[in-house]
């Protein structure tokens, strides 16, 4: 769906992007992760031709982007910016309608789509007639996303879409994004320097440093199979949590103790991550009385914090071996 082949960008003061290649499959979310100034934004902006590459080819939807007029290319690619970039003189509804209007949709269709998006992004209908300055940061960012999604583009580019928000709002909007059906079907390139966000939102993660790709792969690959020292160091601080988040109950199944028959447990689905399981257990109202279990192919296993941690350690040892 998106393909970069040996792409470089040279500025007067050096190479911002140095010979990178990757491809993003249809419906996949790839996260560009890296320190400030490593070339993430430059990479992203080359895809909708806001920046022209010095070298290399970029193919979107099977077509070399150089062969299309930039305006037409951009109308087919959703673009979300860190500082939302909403037009201050347009209402929320008018902001959302920008691309549909460029594509000359009729009024009715645009209005229906606007209502739909407001609803999906949990914005009340009254917001439609407000100006961006009258919204909270979180609302502005949602409108920014709604605007990018308005014309239903197959491809979405997001440059630190939550970068300007406080950590709490950020975490909650991230959850919403994760559950948004519209986003699930799209090919997405998302830029962030937040490791947590990258692991949570990305199907795969592309870690960059000084204009080059250091490693590209799934969360587990980066965690348990780092290509070099830089990768481990980059995720060191959050490693424990990231690992717990990347492993599901069914993966450590074989290391969990059997459940005691006949007791009255709460069941967790096998796809629950270890992190979620620990959260659920530690937030139980009556930790003494409540029990938790999970069932795979009719076999029930008991879950406690202690046994989970033991299973986690065993699992890690098993994949290293």
């Amino acid at each position: 769906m998106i393909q970069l082949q040996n792409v470089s960008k040279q500025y007067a003061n050096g190479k911002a992007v140095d010979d990178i290649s990757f491809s993003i499959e249809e419906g996949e979310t790839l996260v560009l992760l890296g320190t400030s100034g490593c070339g993430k934004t430059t990479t992203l902006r080359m895809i909708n031709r806001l920046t022209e590459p010095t070298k290399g080819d970029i193919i979107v939807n099977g077509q070399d982007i150089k062969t299309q007029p930039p305006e037409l290319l951009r109308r087919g690619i959703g673009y979300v910016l860190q500082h939302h970039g909403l037009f201050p003189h347009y209402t929320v509804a008018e902001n959302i309608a920008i691309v549909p209007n460029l594509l000359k949709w009729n009024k009715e269709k645009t209005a229906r789509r606007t209502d739909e998006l407001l609803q999906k992004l949990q914005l009340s209908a009254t917001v439609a007639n407000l100006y961006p300055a009258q919204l909270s940061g979180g609302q502005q960012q949602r409108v920014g996303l709604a605007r990018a999604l308005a014309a239903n583009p197959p491809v979405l580019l997001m440059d630190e879409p939550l970068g300007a928000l406080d950590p709490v709002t950020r975490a909650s909007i991230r959850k919403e994004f994760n559950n948004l059906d519209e986003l699930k079907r799209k090919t997405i390139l998302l830029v962030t320097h937040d490791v947590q966000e990258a692991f949570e939102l990305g199907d795969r993660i592309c870690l960059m440093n000084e204009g080059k790709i250091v490693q590209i792969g799934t969360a587990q690959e980066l965690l348990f199979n780092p290509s070099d020292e830089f990768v481990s160091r980059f995720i060191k601080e959050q490693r424990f949590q990231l690992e717990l988040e990347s492993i599901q109950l069914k993966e450590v199944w074989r290391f969990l103790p059997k459940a005691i028959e006949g007791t009255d447990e709460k069941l967790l689905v096998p796809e629950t991550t270890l992190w979620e399981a620990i959260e659920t257990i530690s937030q139980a109202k009556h930790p003494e009385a409540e029990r938790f279990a999970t069932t795979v192919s009719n076999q029930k296993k008991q879950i406690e914090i202690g046994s989970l941690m033991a299973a986690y350690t065993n699992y890690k040892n098993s994949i290293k071996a």
Partner: protein
Amino acid sequence: MNEQQQSLWSFIQQQSDKLLEQTLAHIGLTFISLLLSIIIAIPLGIWISRKKQWSGTILGIAGVLQTIPSIALLGFMIPLLGIGAKPAIVALMLYAFLPIIRNTFTGINQVNSSVTDAAKGMGMTSYQILFKVELPLAMPVILAGIRTATVINVGVATLAAYIAAGGLGEFIFGGIALNNTNMILAGAIPAALLAIFFDFLLARVQQLNIKNARISLISIPIILVGLSSFYLLPATIKGHMLAGFTPEFMGRSDGYLGLKSKYKLNIRTVVISDAVMYKAAFENQLDVISGYSTDGRLKAYDLVVLDDDKTIFPPYYAAPIVRQEILTKYAELEPALNLLSGRINDSIMTDLNYRVDHLKEPPEKVAREFLIRQNLYKEPRNGNKGIVRMGSKIFGEQYILLQMYSILIKGNTDLTVETKTGLGGTKICFDALTNNQIDMYPEYTGTGLLVILQPVNNVVQQIIGNKEKVYEYVQKEFINQYKIKWLKPIGFNNAYALMMRKKQAGELNIRTISDLKMFIDNN
């Protein structure tokens, strides 16, 4: 000649036609130039916001244009565009450039880059970005620039009266020249009100909801074009010959008013400053002008004086007027000053003026050479018996006379001289004299009669035709009223006069003002 006693209100009522015409011309001038300026300056501002490397140069040039004094800028326009509305509009347009270019540039630059970035990223063309994003968001700032330019233009447009472009400056400068406060106010108050009104109006537009910027984008040009068209209204009267008169001449009974009442002269007129009037006549832009009969430019521009066959212009014989007190104190002063009496006739004075005004010789040199030729020159005695303070009005002839008197006093007495040249017009010189700030200055009998003494009309009528009677009258009244003495006349008569190009007057066989009237009536 009792304008001072007249109330401002009755003046305005009396002159309401003129006031309306001037106001409309003023609005028209302001807005035509503003409109042209906007048409040029906004695209320029947009252009330099795209090509930042040019912004310094363009803003620099616009800035320099604005530092040129308004009168000088108008003056520069005359050789290029002649007189009248064209040069005035161009000059005003240039004045309005800086605030509009600058504000368009800053207005566009201050649009948040993430907004233009988003616009581009969504696939808007650069044309759409300009008209849907940048200009609407820059509109309040651009409007602020237009507002500044409007206020500047309303003010500077008063100066348009100097180059025959009309406007409220006609009353203002006429009033200053005639020392007529009502006339000044009749021009100045409407001009100030216009500035305040348009400022207020644009402030309202500026405060409109940012969304209505789109409406103002369309409505403002319409309003501007509408206001601009005012200027075309008064310009519909057409005539064969065009006269250019100074603001002072327009308001004097021994001027335009007399031409109308005594000669029934009905000529199309424009108001113009005497600095450009002679040249404009020479260049065929004016056919008839008001001037002074000894002006050096008469000779320089090959003009001829029309005979005042019905005597509306009183004699203007020049003579020094001196405070009686100082004449008594230094008895040797009066004989020294009288040495010049009878020595300079009209043609000599015209020639001396020509050398100063046109050939740009220093007045001091011209005066000294004249006295040497007349055998009146003596080396200064460098005495220190006392000081004589001399003043002069602000034109060449007075400077020359002052230098002559200075040489005569220094050479023939032990007195020294202190000069205060350039004391504006009659009123300022005379006030300086009566307030004991100067001791003497050269004055003209007609001015003493009509501007200072202002006797009732029938007295004027009795004596105006006779130069001796006028001299005697002013001499007697000045001593009685002010203790100021008129010494012996120098000889020349620097009267108001109507002038035409020698060639044209010859071809049309016009020698007198009555001939001119006949010619105009028959065509």
